C-alpha cells in the first residue's frame, strides 16, 4: 500500500509573487470584519448581555410550539424572546435580555423563575433542560475578563515569539494573530451566531493554535536564513513555505479531522465553540502563509538578523567559503 501524501514532493508554488494582492485582500477582509463588528455588533449570549436562557424539550411533541411559546413569553412583559431550535425538533433555546426598566441584581434570577413557571403551567410536556440567569453585574464582569484574556494572550504570545526569534517575527506573529481574531469576530458579526464565554475560549484556542503553523514556517525561515545567506529574501521565504507546506497542511488536517465529527455529532452547546475553532484553523493556516511570511519582506528581515547567534567556528567556515 502506498502512503498518503497530502502535498506532492517538490511542490513549488510561488506564494510570495502574489504577496501584495493577497495582502490587500487580507487587509480588506480585516477592515470588512471590523466594519461588520461595529455596524452589526454581536449576538451576545446571556454570559455577556445578562438575562435569561432556557433550554427545554417538549417531551410529547414532534415539533416545539415556537409560535405559542413566543406569544406566552411575550405576554409576561419582559419583551421579545429569541427562540431557536436547539438540538432535536422538539427542543428549543429561549433567550431573553433583561429589560432596561427592571432593576436589582437578582432581577434576572426572578425573571427566569417566572418564565419557567408560566411555561410549565401553559405547556404540560414542557421539560426544562437548562436554566441560566446572569445579572447585568456578572455579565459585564465576564465581558471585561474575556476581553482582557484575549488582549493579554495576543501580547504574551507575541513577546514570546519576539524573544525566541527576532522583533520582525514577533510583529509578524502579532499581525497574523490580529488577522485571525478579526476574521473570526467578523464571522460572528456576519452570521449573528450566539457569542458567549465558549467563543472567547475558542478565540483563545485559535490564538494558541493558529500560531503553530506560523512557528513551523518561521523556524524554517530562520534555518534557511542561516543556510542560504545570499538568497534573495522573497525566494528564501518561498522556499521555506514550500518546504513546510506538507506540515502546514497535515497539522491542519489532523485538527479538522478530529473537530468535524464534533461539529456534526457533538452536543448542540458545543457547536459555536467548535465552529469558531474550525474556522480559525482555516484562517490561521492561510495567515501563516500569506500574512506571517510576506510581512517579513516588508520588515526587512535579512540573514544578518541572526548574526549574533553565529558562533566563531561558523564565522570561520563562512569566511573560508569566501562569503561576506
Amino acid at each position, binding site marked *: 500500500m502506498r502512503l498518503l501524501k497530502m502535498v506532492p514532493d517538490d511542490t513549488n508554488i510561488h506564494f510570495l509573487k502574489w504577496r501584495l494582492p493577497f495582502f490587500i485582500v487580507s487587509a480588506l477582509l480585516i477592515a470588512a470584519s471590523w466594519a461588520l463588528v461595529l455596524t452589526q455588533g454581536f449576538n451576545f449570549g446571556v454570559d455577556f448581555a445578562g438575562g435569561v436562557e432556557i433550554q427545554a424539550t417538549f417531551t410529547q411533541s414532534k415539533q416545539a410550539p415556537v409560535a405559542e411559546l413566543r406569544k406566552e413569553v411575550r405576554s409576561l412583559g419582559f419583551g421579545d424572546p429569541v427562540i431557536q431550535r436547539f438540538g432535536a425538533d422538539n427542543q428549543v433555546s429561549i433567550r431573553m435580555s433583561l429589560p432596561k426598566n427592571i432593576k436589582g441584581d437578582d432581577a434576572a434570577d426572578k425573571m427566569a423563575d417566572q418564565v419557567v413557571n408560566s411555561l410549565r403551567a401553559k405547556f404540560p410536556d414542557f421539560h426544562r433542560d437548562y436554566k441560566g*440567569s446572569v445579572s447585568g453585574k456578572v455579565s459585564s464582569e465576564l465581558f471585561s475578563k474575556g476581553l482582557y484574556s484575549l488582549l493579554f494572550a495576543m501580547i504574551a504570545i507575541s513577546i514570546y515569539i519576539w524573544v525566541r526569534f527576532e522583533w520582525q517575527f514577533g510583529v509578524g506573529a502579532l499581525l497574523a494573530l490580529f488577522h485571525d481574531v478579526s476574521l473570526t469576530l467578523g464571522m460572528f458579526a456576519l452570521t449573528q451566531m450566539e457569542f458567549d*464565554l465558549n467563543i472567547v475560549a475558542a478565540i483563545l484556542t485559535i*490564538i494558541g493554535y493558529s500560531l*503553530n503553523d506560523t*512557528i513551523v514556517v518561521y523556524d524554517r525561515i530562520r*534555518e534557511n536564513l542561516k543556510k542560504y545567506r545570499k538568497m534573495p529574501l522573497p525566494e528564501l521565504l518561498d522556499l521555506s513555505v514550500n518546504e513546510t507546506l506538507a506540515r502546514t497542511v497535515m497539522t491542519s488536517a489532523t*485538527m479538522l*479531522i*478530529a473537530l468535524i465529527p464534533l461539529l456534526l455529532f457533538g452536543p448542540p452547546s*458545543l457547536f459555536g465553540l467548535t465552529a469558531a475553532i474550525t474556522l480559525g484553523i482555516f484562517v490561521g493556516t492561510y495567515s501563516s502563509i500569506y500574512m506571517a511570511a510576506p510581512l517579513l519582506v516588508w520588515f526587512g528581515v535579512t540573514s544578518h538578523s541572526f548574526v549574533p547567534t553565529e558562533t566563531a567556528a561558523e564565522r570561520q567556515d563562512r569566511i573560508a567559503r569566501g562569503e561576506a
Partner: protein
Amino acid sequence: MLDFPTWKKAWLWFLVAIAALAAVPSLVSIAGVGWPAHLPDPEVNLGLDLAGGSHILLEADPNQVATQRIDSMAESVRNAMREASPRIQIGDISTRGGQLSFMVANPVDLDRARELLLPLVNGTGMTREWSLSVVDETRFVLKPTQAALDKAVSDAMDTAVEVVRKRIDALGTREPTIIREGDTRIVVQVPGLQDPTQLKKLLGQTAKLEFKLVDTTALPSDIAKGIAPPGDEIVPFVEGAQGQGSAIAVKRLGGIRGDNLTNAQAGVNPQTNENIVNIQFNQQGGKRFADLTTQNVNKPFAIILDGKVLSAPNINEPILGGSAQISGSFTAESANSLAIALRSGALPVDLKVIEERTVGATLGADSIHRGLVAMGIGTGLVLLFMVATYGRFGVYADCALVLNALMILGIMAIMNTTLTLPGIAGFVLTIGAAVDANVLINERIREERKRGRRVMQAVEFGYKEASRAIYDANITNVIAALLLFLFGQGPVKGFAVVLVIGVITSMFTAVTITRMWVAGWLRKTRPSDLRI
C-alpha cells in the same frame, strides 16, 4: 539521541503506567459500572454541565453591613446616654450617609457624653473602629473606619457561608460545594439538584426573627400615613397575613431577638389545623422571653421576620417554658423552610442570587453521550489518517495518542480536576493537536531521507530539528490556555485544564515515547530504507 538505556525505558514506562492506571476508575465509571469501594478511587469529577445540577452565585451588599453597624451603634449610644446619671438628653439622631450623628441638647454634657462614647468607638485591642468628631459644638459625628467595615463585611461573609452550609445540609442534598468568592460572594454548587427553587427561597431568607410589643395607642390614620409615634416604628405585615390592615406600630425598644434558639421545627396546631413553627429558646433567650411575656400579659406583641410582621397575637399568659409557637399563614413548605432557616441561624446579610445555571440530568447525559460519540469518531479518523500517511511511524504516533488520552484522564483524576462539556471539546482538540508533533517529526524524517541522509541519521535529525518548533508551538498553546484558565469562568476553565494537561502529556508521549519505540525498532531491524 536514539540511545535508551534500560533504566530510562523503565522510568518512562513507570510514568505512563501510573498515569494510565489512574484513568481506570474514571473509564469504568463512564462505562456505567460501579467501582469497588475498597480500591483507591481517583476519579475525574464531572462538571455540573455534564452531571446535571445547580450553580448559584450569591452576593451580599456590603453597604447593608455598614448600615447595620451604624444602626446598632445608634442603639448603643441611646442606651448609654439614657443610663448615664444624670441622663444626657440627645436628639436629631441621623444614620444617613454612612455615619451616625446626633446633637447633645445641653452643651454642658458634651464632655460627659464623650467619656461615654470612647469605650464604644474603640474596638478590641488597639484598633479604632469609629472615628469620632464634634461639629457645630454640639453635634457628635461617628463614622466607622474602613478597616473596621472591611473586617465586619469579612466576618459577616464567613458567618453567611456557615449559615448557607447548614441550610443546604438541612435540605439533604448530596455533596454541595460552598465557596466564598471575592469579598462579597458565595458560590453554591449542588450536583444533581434539578430544581433549585426551594434552595433559593431558603437562601434568600435572612431569617432575622424579632418579638416586639405592639403600640396599641398609635392612631390607625398615622400608621396608614407611615408616621410613627415617638419611640415606635411602623412595620408592614407579611403578604397574605390576615386582618389588622397593612402595617402596625411597634415599640422600638423592649423587644427581644429570636437568635437565641436551640431548635425550630415545623408543625401543625392541633386546634386550628394551622401550619406553625415551634421554636425553643436557649436558657438566656428563654428567660428574656419569659420576662417579656410576664410583664406584658394581655397585650399584643408582633412576631417580625425579616422586617415583616408574621402575626401579632395577644399574650394570654406568661410563657415560661422557653418554647413558643410562631403562626403566620404558612404553608407546610414555607413552615419547614422557616424552621430550617431559624435552626441554622440568621444570615448576617441578605444574599441575592446574581447568577444561576441549572442543568437537567438528561441534558448532561445527552451531552456526555454525544461528546463521546464525536470524540470516538474523530479519534478513529485521526488514527486511520496517521497510519495511511506515515505507515509504521503512524502506528507509533497512534499508540502514543491512545496513551496520551489515558494519561490526560489519569492526571485529571489524580489532580481531582473537573471534566466539563467544553473540556470534552478540549479533549477532541488535543487529540487533533497531539499528533501534530508526530507530523512535524515524520515530515522532517521524510525530508532528511530525500536529502540523502542514512536512515539512522535521518531519524535522529527528524527528532532533533523538529523539537524546536514543537516546543515553541506548544508553549504558545500553554500561554493561551493559561490565560483562559486565569480569566475564564465556570465550565470554560475545564476546557483550559484539559488543554494545558494535554499539551504537556502530548510532548511526552508524541516525542519521548515514540522516540523510544522508533529507536527500539531501528536497533532491532537496522533497516536500510524507510517507508515514511
